[in-house]
């Protein structure tokens, strides 16, 4: 078995990772590496091989060979066993994987270890799906004895390009479904957070995935990511990220007309009516907003509160936001860690400036914490703007940080109008005790997911994706099988006579 994750000889806290191509851990062809740093204190936590076009070429060749070799024709039950084995290994190591993710990304380990368990569930769900992918039979519409049936076949080589905000979950979303459907995979993890994707490669190797079935090539967007997106040997790209990159990927897909699915962010409205319990409403709004320091594409960052409830809600929300336990994310009691990077910190700081300039009222946070222990990290306080007009930039653009915009609305129609008045459509949510109203809003809100009296429910069996500039295609659930397979129609003549068209 290939070795990896060998501690450095100079500093055993620095992990070293190679690329995983064709079942082997290898250096990049250029010999280049890059460092991954901890957002808590900027310490180097890993030195990682930097893949580029040459390595992507090798990975795609390996994936093509594996696809045409054993993988696509392997009995689905055997593929299911391998995926179940991967799930078991992920589960066994959930705490370790959570810690690695926390070192890389800064999310609290209490959350990242839970997300590792969810990654195992994703593999279990898709292991089950592997044996349930099949076509249908059809009855001919016109006279005559014919049998029609469809075959659902894998698309081939699937490229996955993942973001940094949930590295292991994203790697699981991009790999487990593709493998279950009989495809092979080249995964390009986000450069900020390559560690858990490399651990997934190790787990795949340990579980016994054949060589070339799963390849993981960390590297940078313009070199590795673009090489994958534009590669004529790749049949499908699944991308999570921002919308200009999404559009570039679509442009690059034209070389071989590969299919693309895109998940591109959001600015989700969390609509809170006055008939709900105050403490519950605030707790749910905090959870929707500040989980993962607000770095979740489906975070409830526009909090729309009914005017009759607004003052009470705002007062309590600010009080609770200011009490969120921020600190070293490796501490199990921490609920909010740092932002992922200096770049992200700069973006969040810029939006706080914009919010002030636009005339919103900064009621909480707005800067980096004073705590000396956190001074070297990318920490930013839970921040609340009130009196926000939905036309403001802070209400329209995805900040991807702990900055809430609280917006007042009068009635259901106004809530829908404000909720939908944004370029994105990833998620939306409603808190109300009125069932009829809740379900009316579920229909009227333009979003790929609507949460009623909850937030961040994302399960392996439920489709996730966007409306509008949040992209297209769905991940998770049966809907994803459509993206990862091709449909072939087969016709069989059952008639005893021959219709001799040219003999008539």
């Amino acid at each position: 078995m290939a070795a990896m994750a060998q501690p450095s000889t100079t500093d055993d806290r620095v992990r070293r990772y190679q690329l995983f191509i064709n079942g082997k851990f290898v250096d990049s062809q250029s010999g280049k590496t890059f460092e991954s740093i901890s957002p808590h204190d900027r310490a180097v936590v890993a030195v990682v091989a930097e893949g580029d076009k040459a390595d992507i070429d090798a990975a795609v060749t390996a994936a093509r060979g594996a696809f045409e070799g054993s993988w696509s024709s392997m009995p689905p039950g055997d593929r299911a066993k391998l995926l179940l084995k991967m799930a078991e290994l992920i589960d066994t190591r959930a705490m370790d994987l959570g810690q690695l993710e926390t070192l890389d990304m800064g999310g609290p380990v209490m959350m990242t270890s839970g997300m590792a368990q969810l990654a195992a569930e994703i593999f279990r769900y898709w292991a089950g799906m592997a044996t349930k992918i099949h076509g249908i039979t059809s009855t001919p519409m016109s006279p005559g004895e014919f049998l029609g049936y469809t075959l659902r076949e894998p698309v081939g080589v699937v490229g996955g390009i993942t973001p940094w905000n949930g590295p292991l979950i994203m790697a699981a979303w991009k790999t487990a479904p593709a493998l279950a459907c009989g495809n092979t995979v080249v995964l390009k993890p986000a450069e900020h957070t390559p560690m858990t994707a490399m651990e997934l490669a190790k787990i795949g190797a340990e579980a016994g995935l054949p060589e070339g079935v799963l390849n993981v090539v960390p590297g940078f967007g313009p070199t590795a990511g673009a090489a994958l997106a534009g590669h004529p040997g790749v049949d499908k790209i699944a991308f999570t990220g921002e919308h200009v990159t999404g559009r570039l990927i679509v442009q690059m897909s034209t070389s071989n007309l590969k299919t693309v699915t895109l998940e591109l962010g959001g600015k989700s409205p969390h609509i809170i009516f006055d008939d709900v319990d105050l403490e519950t409403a605030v707790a749910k709004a905090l959870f929707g907003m500040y989980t993962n320091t607000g770095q979740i594409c489906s975070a409830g960052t526009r909090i729309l509160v009914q005017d009759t409830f607004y003052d009470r809600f705002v007062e309590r929300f600010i009080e609770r936001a200011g009490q969120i336990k921020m600190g070293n994310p490796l501490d199990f009691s921490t609920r909010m860690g740092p932002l992922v990077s200096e770049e992200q910190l700069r973006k969040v700081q810029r939006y706080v400036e914009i919010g002030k300039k636009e005339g919103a009222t900064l009621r909480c946070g707005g800067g980096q914490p004073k705590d000396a222990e956190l001074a070297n990290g990318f920490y930013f306080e839970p921040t609340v703007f009130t009196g926000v007009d939905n036309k403001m930039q802070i209400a329209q653009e995805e900040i991807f940080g702990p900055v809430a915009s609280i917006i007042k609305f009068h009635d259901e129609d106004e809530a829908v109008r404000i909720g939908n008045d944004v370029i994105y459509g990833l998620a939306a949510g409603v808190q109300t005790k009125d069932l009829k109203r809740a379900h009316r809003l579920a229909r009227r809100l333009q979003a790929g997911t609507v949460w009623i009296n909850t937030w961040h429910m994302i399960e392996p069996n439920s489709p996730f994706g966007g409306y509008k500039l949040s992209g297209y295609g769905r991940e998770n659930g049966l809907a994803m099988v459509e993206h990862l397979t091709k449909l072939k129609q087969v016709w069989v003549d059952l008639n005893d006579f021959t219709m001799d068209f040219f003999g008539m």
Partner: protein
Amino acid sequence: MLPCEGLTPRAHRLLERVRAAVPSVADPLAFMISGGCCGGTSPVLLRQSNILAGFDVCLGEVDGISVYAHPDHARYLQRDRFVIDALDDVRSDTFSLEIAYGGRFVLQELKVDG
């Protein structure tokens, strides 16, 4: 007044590194302001051929390079005033061309009276 008012010296230096390394005569460089998810609102350095003529909105020109945004995004950015700055020794997501050269362009807000 166009919202994008220029490059900081650090951004200029990064841009010069990219210009020295990548050919840009046949297909000039262009900036497009991205949005959403982990890439967030940042200048993405790409090629003029990636811009949709007649659709994307020009927000200004810096150092001979046009800055664009998607029209729905531009509606909000047009009220803004910013310069393009750079972080050195920082890498990032997105396909922005400068990432391979050791830096990352970011937006820097101009103060109200600045």
